[in-house]
């Protein structure tokens, strides 16, 4: 074993990495629990990659075969039902943990200098995660997915100037067809994973290089406590991953993914079309905006407001100067609190109404 390690060490200087890990510490404070959500998100992403590759062995991304291939996976492939159900549930849990991770970073002001790039790459991954969800929702090519994609791409189409070309680009034509399925499949299994891997690599390297951020003020506290990253924090992470794996298995067995009826472009839209839950707050908000607000189309206004809000949120490290200086910025906290309440409230409204 020692010889093997020495062989590798001669070629890749492992000693440096071991020393780095040995000296890596995780700060302990009242908000340390939030550190775990980054790790859980990473674990769920790994689950997605593995189950996604397994599904890819049988899935066929064409209008004629997509639904049938999923039906085959669910009924004929050994443990196919389990893999697909875990893939679906892990996707949902991933979005949940990513949101929690993002808000914890926001409220702990972990985005402040020098971690602006970590925040930006994280936001990039959040948007890609939403893209994964939106593109993956269509892949079973069932009625609900078909019409939800139609509605979703319709919303993109109302944007001024870029709306129509964007909608045609997303759909691969004027309507949601087999061409849309093909390109969503391409985005889902090639484009998004490639981009995500790059962002994830940068994100992880930055986290490792810069260490865990601590809330303003706590790094200067007397009797500051830390925990070794290796093995303490890593083992705790592993323990949590195991628990999440258990939850995934329970969800997959008791609430397996449904397939629904095959999409039919000529059928009337089924009742209860709605997007995945993490789009629901935006979808519901658009419903409440009047069709005409002053001189603007209500839907266009809504999308633009969400776009501006998203950009402001993304660039918070650059306009929240106070936090970067280590000062308390209550306004940012209130904004964050408002956003959380807004998302929770409108998601619930979208779900129950």
């Amino acid at each position: 074993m020692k010889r093997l390690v020495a062989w590798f060490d001669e070629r890749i200087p492992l000693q440096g990495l071991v020393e780095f890990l040995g000296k890596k510490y995780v700060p302990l404070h009242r908000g340390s629990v939030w550190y775990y959500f980054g790790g859980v998100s990473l674990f769920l992403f790994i689950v997605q990659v593995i189950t996604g590759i397994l599904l890819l062995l049988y899935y066929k991304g064409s209008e004629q075969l997509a639904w049938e291939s999923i039906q085959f996976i669910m009924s004929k492939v050994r443990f196919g039902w389990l893999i697909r159900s875990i893939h679906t549930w892990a996707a949902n849990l991933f979005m949940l943990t990513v949101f929690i991770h993002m808000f914890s970073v926001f409220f702990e002001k972990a985005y402040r200098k020098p971690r602006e790039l970590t925040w930006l790459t994280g936001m990039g991954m959040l948007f890609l995660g939403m893209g994964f969800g939106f593109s993956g929702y269509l892949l079973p090519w069932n009625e609900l997915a078909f019409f939800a994609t139609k509605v979703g791409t319709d919303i993109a189409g109302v944007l001024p100037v870029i709306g129509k070309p964007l909608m045609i680009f997303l759909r691969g034509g004027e309507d949601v067809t087999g061409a849309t399925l093909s390109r969503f499949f391409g985005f889902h299994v090639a484009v998004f994973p490639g981009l995500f891997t790059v962002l994830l690599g940068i994100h992880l390297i930055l986290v490792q290089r810069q260490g865990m951020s601590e809330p303003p003020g706590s790094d200067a506290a007397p009797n500051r406590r830390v925990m070794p990253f290796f093995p303490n924090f890593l083992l705790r992470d592993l323990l949590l991953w195991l628990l999440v794996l258990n939850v995934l298995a329970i969800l997959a067995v008791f609430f397996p993914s449904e397939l629904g009826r095959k999409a039919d472009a000529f059928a009337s839209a089924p009742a209860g079309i709605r997007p995945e839950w993490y789009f629901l707050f935006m979808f519901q908000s658009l419903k409440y905006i009047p069709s005409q607000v002053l001189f603007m189309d209500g839907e266009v206004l809504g999308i633009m407001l969400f776009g501006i809000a998203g950009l402001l949120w993304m660039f918070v490290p650059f306009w929240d100067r106070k936090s970067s200086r280590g000062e308390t910025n209550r306004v940012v906290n209130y904004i964050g609190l408002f956003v959380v309440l807004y998302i929770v409230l409108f998601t619930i409204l979208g779900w129950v109404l």
Partner: protein
Amino acid sequence: MRAYRLIRPALVALVAALWGAAPGMAADECLRCHEDLGGMIPSLFKRDVHYAHGVTCAGCHGGDPTTNDMAKAMDTSAGFIGIPKGDAISTTCARCHSDTMRMKAFGSSLPLRQWEDLQASVHGKLSGVGAGSAIQCVTCHNAHGILRVQTPASPVSPLNLVKKCASCHSNAAFMRTFNPSLPVDQLDKYRTSVHGALNAKGDSKAAQCVSCHGSHAILRATDAKSRVNPVNLPATCATCHSNAVYMKAYGIPTDQFEKYANSVHGVALLQRHDEAAPACNDCHGNHGAAPPGVTSIANVCGTCHTLNAELFAGSPHKKVFDEQKLPECETCHGNHEVPTAEISMLGVSAETVCSTCHSESDNVRGFAAARTMRSLLDSLIAMEETARNLVDEAEQKGMEIGDAKFSLRNIRQARLETRTLLHAFSESRYRPVVEKGIVQAASVRSEAEEAIHEFYFRRIGLGASTLVITIIAICLWLLIRRIEKKGTLSDAARDG
């Protein structure tokens, strides 16, 4: 009412005065002059119902009927319009016939929407070379010499009407200009019908064209509002055929509609509006309506139930039924009351149709065949039900069982085939179809059972994997505890 009777002559005189000359007034100079000129018109008009009510030539043609100066009488400034053309003919009639007050003054009880109905009818909508409606009032009622419908000499009296309608509808060259696909043999067919025969004998109660199609408001049969649209037709026939008083003289039952409405055909057509289901005319004919004879019943039913008819024709029953002069389909299924063909019709128990002729001591071969066929069908139905229940159970458990669910259709298909094949009354032909269904049902059952088994396997598998993960998690937790017993480090310890 009595007061109205008293003032009626005065009202008629008043309206006639307003509308032209009236009896008792100065002679109708138009009529007098035209009589002198000769021709048929004046004599026809003197028989006219309008003339009897005091309406003069000027009532329709305008002008001044009181002067014998032709220039003054036929002066357009005096309202003379000459011979109306196109829709002006009917609008001239409608000036009185659509006017409540005028018609009331004449003591008429005629409907007041005749012109409106005609305009909305198929005749009103088919424009004759751009000259308004295809037919005008005078097309059927004539222009001069118009008689009451009840008057035998009227061209639209019950006994003359068919000829009047046929004057256009039997003229292939004329009808081609409006609707080339419309048959022109209605009158010929009608003459072969029971209605036509009675009409020819002078029975004015027998149905003729307007009895079914209506008079002014005639619509295409494809129009949902038409009295002869398939969905409305049974009710149209029933207006006479369900009227016991009206039909008394003919000595035929009057419960056909009631029976039909509850039959498998009636429910399909009247309740589900399934126009594939037969209405009265599909079995009896429409213009040539007559009850099908014993020998033709199978042919009539066979127009829709083709396979059943073919199988029956090759079955052992065919010869026997012919010999005994039994109406083929009707013997087992009835005629107007045809019920849904249930499984209870087949077999040897008292309520079955087979037991009417077959018993253990009489026609024993048929008895044995009926018993075996019923037993086979019972087995298929039981297997199908079991398979369906298992598929439902697997589905309720959230299992993906689309293939098995689809195969259920094959079992149903086999069961439907047995319904048709039954008409061959041959056990050797019946058995393979039933067995095909039973094999399908067995396959679906096994697939559904496997899915249910898989459901429980998943739960056991989940229990086992949860146990393993939990044990690993506990071990990990113990390991963490052991490592952390040394306590977390302070900054100082870390740096030092």
